[in-house]
Structure formats: structure tokens, C-alpha cells
């Protein structure tokens, strides 16, 4: 219901190529690449056997605790558990952490020993790539994996923060997109992917990561046509058109 100024380009309705996958996710294309948008909020690039997750914000709980707000200290293990479930299901050759993997620069030092061990376990036998985000610009100190500012894969550019303006072929995170859908029976707010088939923004994967409504001005100008939200439901990803989305 916010001001319509943040609406990308006003154009006629556009039929996107979306198909439901057996896992409950949605199959689509981003640029020339085949993409599977998973219920967990992860992106699966099957041709490359590559799993992409954004904005894990590990140790967000302890960041708050340090300031006197004792959020449950289980966000890291919960996030890693969800990642482990995806890795178990898909056996990726490459796992890409698309930035803001840690909540702040001191997160790694607060990591519990068993959580650190779990992360090492996930990296074993595959390539782990840490794309740098604004919260964790230094990359990991003691944990395994390669560090990159951005990388190119299957004709796609993977980076943390979406570049302003149109950037065909870009896959990013950073904005924590969330969709709010309203119907006669009430409203629902869910994390979502958002895409115009040219670029894709991933939802935050972290257990405690909040969401920013895709109708927010931060998304303005990023899409060539009204984008489509793929909202994370219960065991399913729902494709929701721009017209059905409302502000907070």
C-alpha cells in the first residue's frame, strides 16, 4: 500500500516461464541459465551443481546479546542445519555464500566450537566460496573456503549487493526481499526471491534475518519490467505477480 513510486516499469502483463518442481520449488530462467528456486530460499544451478545462499548473518543472536539483548544463541546452528539439509538433498560440487555470511566483523570470534566444526564439515569434499558482503568485508579468518568479491558462473554474475540500474544476468542478495500478499482473508508476509528473468535477488537465508518489502524504494529501478516474487510458503514456492504485492 506504499506509494507506487517504487514500482519499476509500468508495462503490460508479462508471462514468465515458471514451472513447479517436484521439491515444491520453482524452475525458471535467469538470463541464459536454468535456475531452481528452492523452498529454503536457496538457488540451485543444476548444470553447474552449484548451490547459492545469501545473507546467512551467522551470530546475529550473539551480536544482540553483546548489547544486552539475549536472543537465543541458536541462530547459527539453525542456519547451518538448514544449509546442511540442502547440501544433503542436492550434493553440490560448489556452495556459494553470497555475502553477509557473518552478521558483523567479530562474528567469527564468537562462533561456538561445534558450529565452526559443522561449517567445516559442510565445506569438506566441495568448493566453498565466500562472496564478500558489507557486513563481513574481511572474509573468514580460520574457516575453510575461497574468498571473492564477485564471480561469473554459467553466464551469470554473482555478487552480494545488486548494482543500481539494469544488470542483466546478475544474481545477488543484500536486500532481504520479502513479499506481502493481501487477500480478502488477510495478509501474508513471506521471504521471497524476486526476478524479472534478467536478474535475480535471493531472500536472506539466515534464521534471524529480517525481510525488506519488495515494494520498498530500495528495489526501484532494478528491473526492466514488473518483477515477479517467488514467495517461500510451507513446502512450496508460490509465484506472485507484482499486482498482488502490497507494501507493509
Amino acid at each position: 500500500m506504499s506509494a507506487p513510486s517504487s514500482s519499476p516499469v509500468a508495462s503490460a502483463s508479462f508471462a514468465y516461464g515458471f514451472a513447479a518442481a517436484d521439491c515444491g520449488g520453482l524452475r525458471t530462467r535467469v538470463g541464459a541459465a536454468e535456475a531452481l528456486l528452492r523452498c529454503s530460499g536457496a538457488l540451485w544451478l543444476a548444470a553447474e551443481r552449484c548451490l547459492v545462499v545469501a545473507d546467512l548473518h551467522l551470530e546475529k543472536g550473539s551480536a544482540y546479546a553483546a548489547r544486552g539483548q539475549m536472543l537465543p544463541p541458536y541462530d547459527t546452528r539453525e542456519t547451518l542445519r538448514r544449509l546442511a539439509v540442502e547440501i544433503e538433498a542436492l550434493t553440490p560440487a560448489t556452495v556459494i555464500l553470497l555475502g553477509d555470511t557473518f552478521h558483523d566483523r567479530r562474528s567469527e570470534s564468537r562462533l561456538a566450537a561445534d558450529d565452526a566444526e559443522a561449517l567445516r564439515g559442510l565445506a569438506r569434499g566441495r568448493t566453498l566460496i565466500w562472496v564478500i558482503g558489507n557486513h563481513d568485508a574481511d572474509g573468514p579468518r580460520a574457516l575453510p573456503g575461497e574468498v571473492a568479491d564477485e564471480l561469473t558462473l554459467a553466464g551469470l554474475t554473482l555478487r552480494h549487493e545488486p548494482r543500481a540500474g539494469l544488470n542483466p544476468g546478475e544474481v545477488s542478495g543484500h536486500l532481504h526481499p520479502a513479499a506481502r500478499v493481501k487477500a480478502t482473508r488477510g495478509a501474508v508476509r513471506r521471504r521471497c526471491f524476486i526476478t524479472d528473468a534478467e536478474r535475480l535477488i535471493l531472500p536472506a537465508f539466515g534464521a534471524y534475518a529480517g525481510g525488506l518489502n519488495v515494494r520498498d524504494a530500495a528495489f526501484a529501478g532494478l528491473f526492466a519490467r514488473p518483477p515477479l516474487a517467488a514467495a517461500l510458503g510451507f513446502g512450496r514456492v508460490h509465484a506472485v505477480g507484482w499486482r498482488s504485492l502490497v507494501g507493509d
Partner: protein
Amino acid sequence: MADSAVPAADLLPPRFADWFASRGWSPRAHQLAMIERARAGRDAVLIAPTGGGKTLAGFLPSLIDLAERSPSNTPRGLHTLYISPLKALAVDVERNLNTPIAQMGLGVTAESRTGDTGISRRQRQRVKPPEILLTTPEQLALLCAWEGARLYFENLECVILDEIHTLHASKRGDLLALDLARIAQFAPRMRRVGLSATVDDPEVIKAWMANHGSVDVIGPAVAPLQGEPSARRTEGVSATDSATDDIPNAGEETPSVAPGDTSPRGGGSSTVDLVRGPAGAEPIVEVLLSEGRVPWAGHTAQHAMAEVYDVIRKSRTALVFVNTRFQAEFAFQELWRLNEDALPIALHHGSLAAEQRRKVEAAMARGELRAVVCTSTLDLGIDWGDVDLVIQLASPKGASRMVQRIGRANHRLDEPSRAIFVPANRFEMLECQAAREAIAENKLDGDPPRVGALDVLAQHVMGCACSEPFDLLALYNEVRSAGPYRDLAWEDFEQVVDFVSTGGYALKNYDKFRRIVKGQDGLWRVRNAETAQRHRLNVGAIVSPAVLAVRIAMRGGRGGRKIGEIEEGMIEMLEPGETFVFAGQVWRLVGVTNLDVLVQAAPGADPKMPSWGGSKFALSTYLAQRVRQLMTDQPHWQVLPADVREWLEAQRDRSLIPEPDEMLLETFARGHRQFMVCYPFEGRLAHTTLAMLLTRRLERAGAGPLGFVCNDYALAVWAVKPMDGLDFGELFDEDMLGDDLEAWLADSFMMKRAFKGCAIIAGLIERRFPGQEQKTGRQITFSTDLIYDTLRRHQPDHLLLRCARDDAATGLVDVARLGQMLSRIKGRIRHSALEHLSPFSVPILLEIGKERSPGHAGETMILREAEDDLIAEALG
């Protein structure tokens, strides 16, 4: 006023006696009894109907004490603390109290302190307190969390708790009881005085407010007085006391005083004496039998509005009570449509801007208004002389609330209050009739005593640490001296302290981040000043839903003048461009930005009325029972209007009318659906829980349930397959409250909502204050739902999950009531297999499609609907 038979001279100093005489009054017997109790150093609760000089009775002992003190050159600090459940009431009492103080020239300072009090006045009050401070439970909690609280309260002689019946059975009551226990430590001489309107069970209130000083701190000389004999004597006197309820002569001033046991104060536990004021005149209550037909369903009473207007025209000043804000807006709109005489009719509810409410209250006090349409905001206290009629639109839901509301009419004891019930539908007609009879018999429904909540205790423990270092065992004993916490287990207390310190997690990651720390002296103290300051910003046991400001839209999408506030959930039902009624006018919704709802005036437009405008109060157990009885008692039907009577007769002939201890269950087919409708009369909450659990069982039984709908009286479930062959005894077996309940509850949105409330009260997450939110950019606040999900998976026995479960089970899903109902109907389900729907089933079937359906299933439905839109868009 009536003459008193009690010799006043001994109790009332000349200055006071002269003042009474100069007003042409005599002190009332219960006022003198309160002075006498104070002289004896006793805690006391005064139960008297509105208009009985109750507030003055509470203050007289303090005023006399203050007036008789020898002059002193040094300030002597706080003498009397007055606690009101409402800010407005504290301010009102300040005004009413300062009148006699000025007239008698007592030179006593009495000041209010609420969230609305200016900062400079509040600061001055901390440094130099008035002799009488009038405030709210939240401000008291704040004062207790300040450094120096001990000194601030050390000379306190008396605490007066007003409208105590509205406070005790809630988390606010828990917090207040804890703060009383706290200041009792600082001020050993402090007496407790409770003031209450008519209540069902004074023992519950007495137990709540008493000092239950634990045995650990009682000296041997005192202990024998705690023994059996005195306790027995209390019971004996209470029995005589309740007999005075039956004294028919309302004018006769014979207060009864029932002493509690007589242990001396200081450390030991005490009991509270009961003082009863005179019973007021019997209220005259009528049910409006409309010329128009009583509707089958609905909550607006639109059919009777012309008659309501007519009644207003014939009375001096009427209060028109409704149960929700939307009903208030609707009724106000309807009355003005009919208002040919341009009578001054106003609107008053909690969403209106404070300034606007004050205006209405002032006009009311000046006697300028003929009617005010209002919600529970006017249930309490504020004294407005001239109201001569109370109109209740739609059902009252409980007899006690209704007595309170009726008491708003006529603040003079010798004249009866007059009230008219206006039922909005057929079942409500039965309910209004039952309520009328319950009030005539003076049968009230009361709140059961409650066990103090642990999230509130967590907040209190933190507050204690913020004011001064504490010893763990001493604090445990202090906490147990508060009524709601007298049975608190040491293990629970330890868990709460661990939670306050580090969050209480099995994973000990946070030891270095403790909020409170144990020093080398063995005392616990707050980590640093900043932590204490943050705590003080979050004090209080009221968690309000997110509220948006309603503002007139200006150019450029900015918000202009503020009209009032509205809960987030209400505005969700509207789309930009749609019209709605607010603050008595029709507005068009322009949009929502951050915390503002932007609107434009749309005079003359036809407003959209939300369909879910039912009552937020559940039908009380007691009233439900009376409705079931009335329904069975066929000769009694003659008190009902013809169309309602015909409806009952049709039900009797086409289906059946169950006995009062039975539950009727009907099955029939309609369209392609199979229906099961049952009528437990246990209120919407209990019904919704029952429906959730039934659908799980029907799913397992292969019936293929598709949906359900509930109201206060009935619930309907529809399914693919017929359900008339099911074993209903098994379906409604009490064992559904075991695993089925737990499995459903853990996933339900109600647990998440309860968890959020507990997390805020306990200090796990901080309150969000308007303006603090990030305006733009990535949202960094976290959602409590995410925390709930994570905590449930990784530490399901955590303290706050326990708190949330208790809250959900009592407040949100009413498990206790459902349990009682299942046990009541065991073996008493009357099944009626029908060809067609029955007359009783019509109201509930009319509600299908009007309810919101929260939870996973509801959310999935909304998302699927949006997907269908997309498909339609793509194909179109």
C-alpha cells in the same frame, strides 16, 4: 444524604466533620469504617457500588493523618500512593481530591504522575515527592526500578489500589502485586487499601492484595498467630458478611466489616479486612424488543437503531456501550443519520486522539451531551453525574462487566440505574435475557484467581537489580509475599534469574554478556547504567498491537493532522481508495506509509463495514450456562419477542432443543458439502480451538474436512463425506486435549503471538517505539516468529516457551474451558441427523466466508489465491 448511625465524633476530627456539615453531608458508615480500620493499622478492601463515596473513603484516613501531623520544616516524603488502572482516572481523582483539600485548608500536596505528565514535573516529583502521589501500575514499576527507590518509599504509610477488580486477574496485576511486595520491604508501616466495585468473590481480591510474608522471615513470637483458629474465624465472619448482600433496604447504611486474622504487620503475612458499602438501589434493566425483526446474524443492531435513537431522545444523558471500536463508529454513524433533532451525540473510544477524547469528556462533565457512544474506555471510574441511562448495543457477554457499565448511570445511590440491552441477533436475544435475569438475582461471573506469570517476574527481577543490589534468597522470599507468587517454586525462581542474567539457554555462550552479575559480596546487580536505562524504557505488562497513526493526507504523500490511532490488523482489511468510518466521519484510504495511515475526507460516501465486527470479549461461562437453561425452559420463552419464539419453536419441531447439560450436534448436507454443526455455547475462543482439533480428527477419520466457522454459540465444520455415522463420543473425547492439542498448538500462530508478548514483557526483545523504526533501507529488526521457530527446535523447554504456552492455553485458546465442556458433555451429545439445515444453524452458516483464517492453511490459501491471479493475468 442518608443519616449515619455510627458515632462519627470519635473518628472524624472537627475540621473534617465541619467540612461534611458545610456540604450538607454526613459521613457514610463505610467511610467511617475505613477510618476505623486505618486506626487499627489494618489492610482493608472496600467493596461498594459506584457513587458511594468510595474514593473519598479510601483517602480520608490519609487526609486525617496528614492534617494531624505536627508541622515540620523538612519535607517528609511520600505518605500515600494511589494506583489507578487508567491514566485518565488518576488525573480525575487528583482533581476530585484537591477540592476537599483546598476547602478544608489542609495544605496537603496531591499530584498525579502518568505517562502523559510533563518531563519537568516528573523530574521534580522524583526529587521532591508530593505527600499523595496518584499514578498507574506502569509508573510504579518504573519508580521501583530507579536507583534510590528504597529512600523514595521509606516513609510511605498507605497504598490505595482503585478499581482493583479490573487489575488483579491480569499480568498488570502480577506486576503490581510484585511492586507492592517490593515497597512493603522499603516501608514496613505501609497499609494496603483496595477499592472495588461489586465483585463476585471478594476472597480472590483479598488474597491477591494481602501480604503473604513467607514463613522464613516470621519470628517465633508471631508464628502462633498464623494458626488454624484465626483462619477459621475469618471464614465464619465472611459467612455472616455475605448474608448482608440480601439486605433489601438499599438506603440503610450498615457497612459490614469482616476482619481477617490479626497478625501484626511487619514481615509476617497479613490478611485483609473486608468493608462493604451499602448496596445500591436495584438497577432497572430492560431488553429492547424491537418492532423490526431480530436478525439471524450480525453484530451491529442496525435493525433497532431508530428505537435506540428514540430512547436517547427521551432521556437526559445516555451512555451507549458497544464491544468494539468498529461497532462504535458504525452506531455513531447510524445515530447521526437519524438525528433530526441535532442532539449533541458524541463518540469515545481508545483509537481517537487523546485530545479529542478529553474534549468529549469535558463536554460530558459540563452536561452538554445527550449521548456518548463508547467502548470499554468508559467502563471505569470517571464520575459524570448526569448519566441516567445506559444502552448496551449487542450482547454484554458477561454479567459483571454489565453491572459495571450499568453503574455508570446515575451516580446517586438512592436512585436505581437504568439500562437497556439491544440484542443484535437471535442468540444474543437469549443472552441479553439471561444477563438481565442474572443481574436481577445479583449473580455475577468472576475471574478465577491466577498464578503469577514468569515473564512478568523476569521483568520485575531486572527492575529490582536496576534499583539496588539484591540477595537471591531475600528476593525469593519477597516475591513469595505477593499473592500471585506465593506458591512460586525455588527452581522456577532460579530459572527466571538465570533468564534475566544470560537468557537462560542450555548453550552457555552468553556468560560474558550477563545483564545482571553476582558480585563478590554475593549480591546481584545490573551490569551497567546503560543496561538499566534500557530496561526502564521497556517497563510495563501491557503489550499493545502495532498501532498506526491516522492522518489527513497532504500533498506529496505527507501526513497532516492526526485524527487518531488504529491497530494494524484493522487497516489490513482495506485497500487504497476504499472508504471506512473513523472518528465519526467517512474517510477514503489514500495509502499507508511507515507508521501513518493517510486518509482523505469522503463525506457522503457509503463506508465499507468490516464483516468481522464481533465482540472481542468471550461469553462468560456463567452467562453461557444461563443461556442454555433459558433455551430449554419452554414456558420461559414468552419473555422473548415473537420472531425469536417462533425460531425456537421451529428448532424444536424440525430438529431438537437439548437439555441444559447436553450438547446438540446436527448433521446435514447442503450443496455439495456435508455439515456438522454443534452448539457448545462456550465462546468463540474455545470453539475455535475445538474446531481446529476436530478437523485434525476428522481428517484422520477420513471425512475430508474442508473448513469451519465459529461464533460464541456454535461451530460448523464442513467436509467431503457425510459425518452422521461417526462415533461422536469418541470424536469429542477429552483425550483430544493431549497430543492433538500439543501438536496443533506448537505450530499455531497463537503460540507465536503469545511468545511475542512474553518476549517483550520479559525483556528478551525491546518494545518498538513509534519513530524508532528504520525509515528506509534494509530492515534490520528481527521478527519474533523467527526466534520462536529457532528456539522451539533447539530448546523446547525454555522458560519463555513455557510462558507462551500457558498464555496461549488460557488467553488465546481457552483450553481450560474447553476441557470443562468436554467433560460436561461426555455421554450427553444429542445427535440430530437432518435432511436440511436447522433454524439454529442459520446464524452460524451465515458467518461462513466472513472469518479470517490465520495459520499455515490460511496463509497458503492467500498465496494460492495470488497465484491464481497471476495465472489469470498471464492468460488474460
